[in-house]
């Protein structure tokens, strides 16, 4: 096998050195009944051209050359060429978790920069080195609130990403929690009074998402006030952090968590993505996941290392703040490079263009007689009422378009409504065509 650096002769020599005359002897420790006494029922190894051809054929079975208007937790923003050029440095992508800081300073400093960037974006004081994705960041955040408050009830907005809420249910099923759902109102935000209803001194956390699943920006200030009245923590989830280029960060929150795919990570059919979790310094020891800290070496030189590991499973075992070990470091690096490249102006411009495109599209729909389902302010996603039947996959595909998400799948009450996303990558004429198809 071409990946294996041994000649038959070298194998013989090594076997001899260990005093075996057959490779079989090395497996003597495995009792006979546990041995596989046949070849695996797989094909013989393929050459590289065959492997490449196989995936080229699979790729050709997917959409190629389409303009997509899907968002719903996975966003298509332009990735500068430098991102891939730099994460392809093998010292980054073929390294393990930086357990040996003296030969891992590259990864460690980059993560420290990631933690800083997330703090700057979210308005929080500390951020961790990443979590699996936005959906798993939600239960991690809620469990953190439980640890911080010692309470076991959470109120979660129905406008939080439905798949995130499904993951929350799965994760917390055996944690003795009660989870209440807060309905949304006509404006698409958490409904009037829903927050008030959630109040109580057993309340651990209030969870909202902003922009929420409908693209609507929530009133974080109000949510914070009510959460804090009950001595609960406010958790703000963010699935489209590009919004933070222009939208005020949820600084009143106690925990800001979410998905950073939108900032430089390829769509890649849903993963790998990168979850983030940020909070206030006072909660740092309740945080899940890895943290990189600054320190000095023997000569007083600045350096970085993993720190506060006593929160983690490999030391705390069953008392750990989470079981997470491997996280999404390379995706966090993509985000770090993406944000460094766009920079202060670039990220703002990115957000403004998304805002403008979504506004333009919404207006077009309005003109075409298709109205928005919700009245609240929105960033780059908008729900259009009752147009699903017209925008069939077939009609759209004929025009090399991928339309929005039919909401009935997650919200029976919104069946027929479509969630559409408009980023800087959608040309005006394609938006116009999309609107025509959906409204005729």
């Amino acid at each position: 096998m071409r990946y294996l650096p041994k000649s038959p002769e070298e194998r013989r020599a090594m076997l001899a050195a260990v005093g075996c005359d057959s490779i079989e002897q090395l497996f003597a420790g495995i009792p006979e009944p546990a041995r596989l006494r046949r070849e695996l029922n797989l094909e013989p190894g393929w050459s590289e051209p065959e492997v490449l051809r196989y995936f080229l054929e699979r790729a050709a079975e997917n959409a190629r050359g389409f303009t997509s208007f899907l968002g719903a937790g996975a966003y298509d923003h332009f990735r500068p060429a430098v991102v891939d050029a730099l994460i392809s440095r093998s010292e980054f992508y073929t390294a393990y978790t930086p357990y040996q800081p003296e030969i891992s300073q590259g990864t460690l400093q980059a993560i420290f920069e990631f933690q800083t960037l997330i703090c700057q974006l979210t308005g929080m004081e500390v951020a961790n080195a990443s979590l699996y994705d936005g959906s798993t960041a939600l239960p991690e955040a809620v469990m953190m609130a439980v640890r911080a408050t010692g309470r076991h009830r959470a109120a979660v907005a129905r406008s939080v990403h439905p798949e995130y809420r499904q993951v929350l249910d799965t994760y917390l099923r055996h944690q003795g929690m009660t989870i209440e759902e807060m309905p949304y109102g006509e404006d698409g935000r958490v409904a009037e009074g829903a927050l008030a209803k959630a109040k109580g001194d057993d309340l651990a956390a209030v969870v909202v998402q902003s922009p929420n699943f409908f693209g609507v920006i929530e009133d974080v200030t109000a949510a914070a006030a009510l959460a804090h009245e009950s001595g609960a923590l406010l958790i703000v989830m963010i699935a489209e952090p590009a919004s933070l280029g222009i939208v005020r960060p949820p600084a009143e929150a106690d925990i800001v968590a979410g998905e950073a795919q939108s900032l430089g990570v390829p769509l890649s059919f849903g993963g790998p993505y990168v979850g983030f979790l940020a909070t206030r310094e006072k909660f740092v020891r309740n945080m899940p996941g890895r943290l990189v800290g600054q320190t000095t070496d023997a000569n007083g030189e600045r350096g970085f290392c993993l720190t506060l590991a006593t929160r983690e499973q490999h030391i705390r075992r069953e008392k750990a703040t989470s079981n997470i070990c491997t996280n999404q470091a390379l995706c966090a690096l993509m985000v770090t490079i993406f944000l460094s490249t766009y920079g202060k102006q670039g990220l703002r411009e990115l957000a403004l263009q998304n805002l403008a495109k979504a506004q333009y599209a919404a207006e077009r729909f309005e003109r075409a007689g298709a109205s928005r389902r919700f009245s609240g302010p929105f960033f780059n996603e908008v729900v259009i009422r009752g147009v699903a039947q017209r925008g069939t996959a077939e009609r759209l595909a004929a025009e090399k378009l991928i339309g929005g998400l039919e909401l009935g799948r997650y919200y029976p009450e919104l069946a027929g409504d479509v969630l559409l996303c408009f980023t800087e990558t959608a040309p005006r004429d394609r938006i116009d065509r999309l609107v025509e198809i959906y409204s005729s």
Partner: protein
Amino acid sequence: MADQDIKKARRHVTQNEALIFERSAPGKDSFRLPPLDVPAVDPAVVLGAGAVRGGIEGFPEVSEIEVVRHFTRLSTWNYGVDTGAYLLGSCTMKYNPKINEVVARLEGIANAHPLQPEELSQGCLRVMQRLAECLLEITGMDAITLQPAAGAHGELTGLLLVRAYLESKGNPRRRVLIPDSAHGTNPASAMQVGYQTQSIASNARGTVDLAMLDRAMNEDVAALMLTNPNTLGVFEDQIAEIAAMVHARGGLVYMDGANMNALVGVSRPGDFGVDVLHLNLHKTFSTPHGGGGPGAGPVAVKKNLEPFLPVPRVVEKPDGALALDYNQPQSIGRVRAFYGNYGMLVRALAYILANGRDGLRQSTEDAVLNSAYLRKGLEGHYELPYSSPTLHECVFSDKRQARHGVRTGDIAKRLIDYGFHPYTVSFPLIVPGALMIEPTESESKQELDLLIDALQSIAREAEQEPELVLRAPHSTRVGRLDEVQAARKPILRWKPANGG
């Protein structure tokens, strides 16, 4: 040994580099987008003045070449598999084939949206289906989910399946048994599923003590969480008896598949009594570890647990087309949005196809041969706490060196000067001062001979000039870092000099 006598490595000039924030200067041009082709809007009007933010305080403003140099320089401070042997035990740091990086970036795959219509995603789904088939054949299990994002995530998923299954039988039970040699994620995961954990002490051979298990295993125990081969690299030779005992008392056998690299093509968990198993594609199946992820932790189960697998599942329609099935009434639900770390699934399949049955088997044999060769070369120089035969890795202890005040952590640091990435130091807990070494099949005889030389030489240094080892590494751009200080007053993010 003096610098110049070290065969494998030498010091060379490398660049210093400040934090990206320290490179920033107001008004530097950065990345630009094409001109907006729709009317611009005033955010204050559209969102309301209160909802809009100004420029982000302290956010970087740097040019493209500065970004390129910044991360290029940082990368040169790292050590990767492409640099040299990466000996972390239990991490299986094998070669990451370059073609896998190419196929994962193909148009049609890298830009596929997870929610795009199924008719436009058949290629993506076929890859998942084919990978699932391969992994089931390799493990001897009946059904699988590719959703978990890493090993620990797989453990959580697997134990949720155990619990759901037992609940369906009327009693979820309360405890999970975990050998004291297990990885920390095992108990942590059990706890997240609401199980108490009970540690099972290993016997003198480093394997599960049957008598102990006999005492602990009762109607209150949901599962035994086993790593096989275990973290000493030893195969549980009484696995048949163990599985029988657990099953006889209504429990399930969960296997942590972190060490599957010792078994692929040689032994199948499905054939030795395992009910639930998670794999680490970022270990056994060569997906790059990325400096700490992403990984992928598929969970394979026996038929009786299949109904509980997470949704959605990839199913074949009568017309042969593939679809995602969400209608699984007994499913535990979702453990992650969408379908998992898809890009890692692509790479793992590429690895399996390139190796094929012959290559996979040969890889396993080479991995075990490398470990045996290494063990042979180090016996007599380092203490071997357990003499049982080992497979893909071997665990020594620093007992002899400790007499001179040199601990495993010091030996590891010194090994850096010799040009290697150290082994795992802090694990398994049953071996005080462990040196847990996993060479994988990717190391050549030459590289292993250099490693044996190096560790033998360090053993001599530990006796003759312990100070040299205690103050190591001497060859790196930063010396030993003060981890205590880092934890005592944590600095977890950069702040503007003016303290913004």
